């Protein structure tokens, strides 16, 4: 607040210039902003655990939670047109006081499966914070279900956000459990499983092209269309993860299926991308790619975008790419006027990027997305502004934005060339920001 202005009654947007921000030179990566109550901006393109679970072909999801918690996931399924693959069991107060959560889950899931037109090959059962706090016997429940439905593969999934700071986050757990239903298969030394991404890797991207050129096969869950295709993922001999949330999935595949796990973090840094591609080439026994030409193409693309966008302000948020600071560094080094990056924390992978920004571009502004003040912050800009990411578009209130989430299927240098093209396009064509960013789970076929 600016001292005298108060918030009373319902106001239209844009009245207050308030903004929480810290300069890159002053940022403490372990304590970026003061924390407390949290706000949720109306940008919904990122995927949630319903969307991700639906990646397993033919699987049925059953959520066992309180009504208030079911609401969001039920409507996620409805909006993506998969209500026929989604059911719920409501936990009520009597279940908590009576301590019959195990019976409720087993009988509830049984009731639902008996009512389905046909038994699905797999069922993802999502338990909640309540089960965790009540100490529900998950092993017993799943054992009982497997005995009752021996042809169905059950796996444990979790909607327990209260655990987001205790061990694996729900997002990490979900991405790991996607692979928990794989069964042992003979290994194919030519198969690589790109793991834990919601989007299929772009066919023109560096990793798919590298594997193709080397005569190898890329496989990943978003490309599977049948339960059998899903099971065949276990034939991969190498798995690749490129975002932090997917690392536990890679570890699971290494431990349970003996795959070699390559953690190749997504990046906009040329050296890091080249190192990733080299590591994958070495692991697969194929020639390392010539990155000089790829880098030259990146430079060309960035130059072209810069000529189009000029000195206009650019704002970036963390939902677009898992390395927002790496992206900011790349763009700033190429002359773009990046004004602000929205993020609520700095991942381990980004510490080096923050150090570099602090040294080279110390006045870059960092702002949170969940801080309560962001609810009332001014969302008008004096200049035409380009945003990269939905939250940045919302906070900057601009129709000129790159509509992308979760790296968008890019895997290497193609992220640089691809994003540069998307930035040009975004700068030249207005979008309906409100409609686009309100759609849940970008790419999931919303019925809205």
């Amino acid at each position: 607040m600016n001292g005298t202005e108060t918030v009373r009654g319902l106001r239209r947007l844009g009245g207050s210039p308030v903004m929480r921000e810290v300069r890159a030179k002053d940022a403490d990566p372990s304590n970026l902003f003061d924390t407390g109550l949290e706000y949720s901006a109306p940008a919904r393109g990122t995927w949630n655990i319903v969307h991700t679970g639906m990646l397993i072909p033919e699987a049925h999801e059953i959520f066992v939670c309180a009504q208030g918690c079911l609401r969001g996931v039920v409507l996620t399924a409805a909006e993506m047109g998969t209500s026929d693959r989604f059911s719920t069991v409501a936990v009520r107060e009597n279940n908590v006081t009576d301590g019959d959560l195990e019976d409720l889950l087993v009988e509830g899931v049984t009731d639902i499966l008996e009512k389905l037109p046909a038994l699905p090959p797999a069922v993802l059962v999502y338990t909640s914070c309540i089960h965790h706090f009540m100490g529900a016997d998950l092993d017993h429940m799943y054992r009982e279900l497997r005995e009752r439905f021996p042809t169905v593969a059950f796996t444990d999934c979790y909607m327990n956000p209260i655990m987001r700071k205790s061990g694996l986050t729900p997002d990490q757990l979900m991405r790991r459990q996607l692979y928990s239903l794989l069964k042992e298969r003979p290994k194919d030394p030519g198969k690589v499983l790109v793991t834990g991404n919601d989007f299929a890797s772009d066919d023109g991207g560096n990793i798919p092209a590298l594997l193709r050129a080397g005569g190898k096969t890329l496989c990943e869950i978003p490309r599977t269309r049948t339960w059998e295709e899903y099971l065949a993922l276990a034939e991969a001999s190498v798995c690749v993860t490129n975002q932090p949330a997917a690392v536990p999935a890679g570890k699971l595949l290494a431990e349970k299926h003996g795959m070699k796990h390559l953690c190749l973090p997504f990046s906009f840094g040329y050296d890091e991308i080249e190192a990733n591609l080299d590591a994958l080439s070495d692991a697969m026994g194929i020639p390392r790619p010539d990155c000089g030409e790829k880098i030259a193409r990146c430079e060309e693309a960035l130059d072209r975008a810069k000529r189009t966008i000029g000195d206009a302000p650019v704002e970036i948020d963390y939902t677009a790419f898992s390395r927002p600071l790496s992206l900011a560094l790349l763009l700033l080094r190429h002359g773009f006027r990046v004004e602000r990056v929205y993020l609520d924390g700095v991942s381990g992978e980004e510490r080096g990027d923050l150090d570099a920004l602090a040294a080279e571009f110390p006045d870059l502004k960092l702002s949170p997305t969940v801080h309560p003040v962001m609810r009332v912050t001014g969302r008008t800009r004096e200049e035409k502004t380009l945003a990269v990411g939905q939250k940045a578009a919302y906070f900057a209130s601009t129709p000129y934005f790159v509509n992308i989430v979760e790296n968008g299927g890019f895997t290497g240098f193609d992220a640089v060339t691809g994003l540069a093209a998307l930035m040009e396009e975004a700068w030249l064509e207005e979008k309906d920001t409100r409609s686009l960013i309100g759609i849940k789970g970008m790419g999931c076929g919303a019925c809205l």
Partner: protein
Amino acid sequence: MSVKQTARIISTYAGDTSGVASALFELGGMTVMHDASGCNSTYNTHDEPRWYDTDSLVFISALTETEAILGDDEKLIGDCVRTAKELHPAFVAVAGTPIPMMTGVDFAAVAARIEEETGIPSFGFPTDGMHSYISGAGMALEALARRMVRDPSKKTAALTVNLLGLTPLDFSVNGTPGAMKAALAARGIEVLSCFAMDSTLAEIERAGEAHVSLVVSGAGFGAARVLGERFGIPWVAGTPCGPMFTDRIARAVREAAETGGNLAPLLPDPGTADAKGVIVGEGVTAASLASALTDAGSPCRAVSAVDTDGVLLSGGIPCAVDEDDLMPLLSGAEVMIADPLYRPICPPGTRFVPLPHEGFSGRLFRRDIPRLVTDFDSFRKENRL
């Protein structure tokens, strides 16, 4: 074990925590859902059509496992106090979710501490995410009636009502409050305040000056009773819906104003118990539509699928929350009128008439939600009712 808590394919009504936030949204307060994560995005994506364009203050507390285990209510109180001092809301409301229910958070005490430290009126609501929005909105509106409505110096000269139970979860954002005001004004009744859409907090503070409370959804019963206790204001239950039924409501309002007795013109005539048309939804609005259709020559009965006040239950309106409970009540129906997400359980041979309901399907069919106050006749004709 008899399982009555499953939904193979149908949706889920908005929860009580969302109900609190929805009811208080327009009044300049700050609502905090004491929750880990998820409640806020669910609320503002599916339960709150006003979220994008306005900046009403609704937050989550971002509760963690450690805070829950340690019973660290000081963290919640401190965060609320700090934010309230920065954003200056007209009041603070803190609403619960499942884990605070399990750990026994004393929301009244939390609110008292926040009020003590900020001087801002504060409310605590023991919602737990296990009831419908009707329960939560009901608590919030009741609290407004108890705490924010001032003792009146006199009644208004004109015949006035307060509309109780107005939230977008039952009426969307299609101009229903204004349409209700106009419909009642045409019948010589002025609306003094709406709990709580399209009214300011200052207007709600004057609610004690009204002659009658008009309960337009189940969320309004609690506030109606409090206004009755505090100021002797009688209530009438019924949602203005089409000219004939709105006439009946107007007559009931006049009668209540004269006699001081509570009236529920929406309750079905005994003769409609076997009606072949079935409306499934929120109790008061469904029963009102059933009455309006019956008045118009299409006998219908209502089934409430959310928390249902005793007035409705004792008046013969059944409550069925789960699929298993609902199915027998649909048996034999010629027509089923309900939200489109109920369509998969419409019995074979029964004609389904979609009536989108924000509290059930969220934003999915928002553009198709009719404003029944004024669009009743066209809704009836278009659907051959």
